[in-house]
């Protein structure tokens, strides 16, 4: 059975949104998605899924606060404590069972409400082995960036070209929070934070919400939305302990991609995938993820980035949306935002950042520091 995305709804991503509560952000994105799909949540939707973590939200049981603003009161609703793409995977499975025909996936960030972000991320470190070291949790990203750059022999300049590309791409995305005309030299000169990562290598938090409406092929025919098919989906986790995981490669992304490509019957991703939206919450992650997804050979992503192959007009456009470096880090909504962006491109609704002639795209997510968990979705239009 084919499963399609028939509705996309997003708020703008902004560094802060004092006039909106997180409930209002959810309401706005959901209203847009329902209007886009032409569905009435009270009548047409069989299942609602929210992707959220208690600590980010500042609640003991965040699931309580989900239903009303989505139109989900007294309906089947649940929280997937994961990235938005993991929520999409669960909605995909629910529809495949035949029990659910139309499902809604929601993820958001109200990062501007978080007073102690560093402390929260630090609380995700192992309480016995790692927390007593009292390091800033982004040290994990710095160490990983170092391992990646060394093992793949990628020059640090490649990270700067990722930063420059994504910040500039974001200038053409009206939803983006951090669009800027940053050049490679500026990125290379920014202050060192978690060596080898510099200030501009690290995405900044943003507020925002993304809602997608999914439907089975049969149900999709009833609604206005033009379906973008979820051809394949995969998700996986590597070791949660820092001491025993693969630091150089993104094994979780490789495993997730293998699963997604298998379901989508993609044999040669480097030729079959037209464009990609991958997690770039630290600049090196974009390169590491491209290699894990099989879209670049090991050790080649950096050099290709420097040649401009991932620019909007390049061989494989990557993060045309501006990615997290350009749009902002929206935490658990990051992966869902990438899927929304791929869907908009495939529908031809990406406005001034629209790519020509694309029919297959990949969205990829990672659950941020200090996890080794990620998901991949292969989306397409046409037969």
């Amino acid at each position, binding site marked *: *059975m084919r499963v399609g995305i028939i509705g996309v709804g997003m708020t703008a991503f902004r560094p802060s949104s004092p006039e909106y509560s997180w409930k209002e952000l959810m309401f706005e994105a959901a209203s847009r998605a329902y209007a886009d799909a032409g569905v009435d949540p009270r009548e047409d939707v069989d299942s609602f899924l929210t992707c959220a*973590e*208690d*600590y980010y939200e*500042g*609640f*003991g*049981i*965040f*699931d*309580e*606060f*989900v*239903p*009303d603003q989505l139109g*989900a*009161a*007294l*309906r*089947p*609703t*649940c*929280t*997937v*404590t*994961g990235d938005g793409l*993991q929520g999409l*995977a*669960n909605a*995909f*499975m*629910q529809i*495949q*069972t*035949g*029990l659910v025909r139309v499902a809604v996936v929601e993820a958001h960030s109200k990062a501007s409400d978080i007073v102690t972000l560093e402390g*929260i*991320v630090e*609380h*995700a470190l*192992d*309480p*016995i082995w790692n927390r007593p070291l009292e390091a800033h949790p982004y040290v994990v990203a710095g160490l990983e960036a170092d391992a990646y750059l060394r093992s793949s022999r990628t020059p640090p300049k490649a990270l700067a070209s990722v930063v420059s590309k994504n910040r500039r791409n974001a200038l053409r995305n009206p939803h983006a929070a951090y669009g800027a005309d940053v050049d490679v030299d500026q990125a290379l000169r920014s202050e060192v934070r978690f060596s080898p990562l510099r200030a501009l290598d690290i995405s900044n938090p943003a507020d925002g919400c993304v809602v997608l409406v999914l439907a089975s092929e049969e149900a999709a025919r009833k609604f206005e939305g033009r379906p973008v098919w979820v051809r394949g989906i*995969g*998700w*996986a*986790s*590597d*070791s*949660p*302990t820092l001491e025993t995981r693969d630091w150089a490669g993104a*094994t979780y992304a490789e*495993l*997730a991609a293998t*699963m997604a490509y298998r*379901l989508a019957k993609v044999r040669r991703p480097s030729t079959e995938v037209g464009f990609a939206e991958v997690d770039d919450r630290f600049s090196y992650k974009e390169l590491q993820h491209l290699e894990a997804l099989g879209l670049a050979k090991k050790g080649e992503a950096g050099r290709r980035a420097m040649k401009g192959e991932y620019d909007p007009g390049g061989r494989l456009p990557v993060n045309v949306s501006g990615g997290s470096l350009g749009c902002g880090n929206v935490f658990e909504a990051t992966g869902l935002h990438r899927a929304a962006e791929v869907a908009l491109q495939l529908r031809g609704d990406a406005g001034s950042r629209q790519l020509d002639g694309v029919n297959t795209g990949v969205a990829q997510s990672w*659950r941020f520091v200090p*996890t080794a*968990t990620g998901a991949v979705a292969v989306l397409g239009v046409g037969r």
Partner: protein
Amino acid sequence: MTSKVGVIGAGMTLFRRRLQEAPKELCYEAAKMALDSAGLTLADVDMVVSGSAPDAFDGVHMKGEYFLDGCGGYRKPYTRVFTGGGTGVFSAIAGWWHVASGLADCVLVVNEEKMSSCQPHAQSVFAHIWDPILDRPLRPNLIWIFAMEMNRYMTIHKVAKEDIARVAVKNKRNAVGHPCAQLADPNITVQDVLNSEVMAWPVQRLDISPPSDGAAAVVLASEDFIRKRRIRDRAWMSGVGWCIDSTMWTDRDLVFPEYVARAAKMAYRMARIEAPRRQIDFAEPYDPFDYKELHHLEGLLLADKGEAPKLTREGVTQRDGDLPVCPSGGLMGVGNPIAATLGIKIGELFWQLTGQAGKRQIPHEVRTGVCQAWGDLMQYGSVVVMRA
């Protein structure tokens, strides 16, 4: 389309006020027991689902990531789901769709809760489950909100406190045969419950299940997998349902759990059950408070509104009654490590339906059972119907 899904193994750790094991270790123990009971190893498992309630109990942000290796999620597709106390049954529903979708043949579901690391008491986490503007300034706690619900139930249906206390007595006695039980008591009487300390009237100390540490796991598999592996001990998940009510608890009618009724109807429709009272042989409703068992029996449509106390008084819900309820001993007797109650809901149905419940085995033949969990802020129902 939907393939049949069976439960083929279950395991659970001791439920105790304070266990020495770290969260990962609890997950590992339960997962290992469940796999052993199914005669499988981790290599047979395609995907892993975990369930756990507030992260703040363990004091770990993204605790699903933290204990994933203990659950067997290393280098596998792994997801954690979270619907408050509803997770006790809901994670198995998530496991169900992993298999029923055809994406996985064999799924391991592991639920963990470690409430003892929360100082000074797990109640302090529950201070953060309220609306920050409307509720938190009133400094509510869970006991008084359930006291309101219990009081309303007693008032509307004119239920005597003795009839509610009978549930606590039944379940604590039922738990005597349970190897993991925290609060089993063969000699407890209704008078003991009525004499216990008043927490917030009408809730008394022995009306409440205790906070606990513990973990539980079940193994789910497709019909194909069960046939090929010639697995004999299996119970089919023939209906699943879940439902959430509005966040605004002040807008709800506390006397009847409509969200449980809707989840039950969804599960019954799938399991083709038209007359639940006649077609269901035994039940494991969620009983963190004794009145909740009664409340939920009515929500599950196994008793008319206000009838559950009468069924209890008449012995219908005893282990040897016409409709045994919480033959495991329930949360009142075995303990309440929120999500890990999986072991006394889905786990107990599996053990009863495959004749492995030992001293707790219902004396007459049972072929269809229903279990249910309840969560969030008195607003979540998750229901599973299982058949032998």
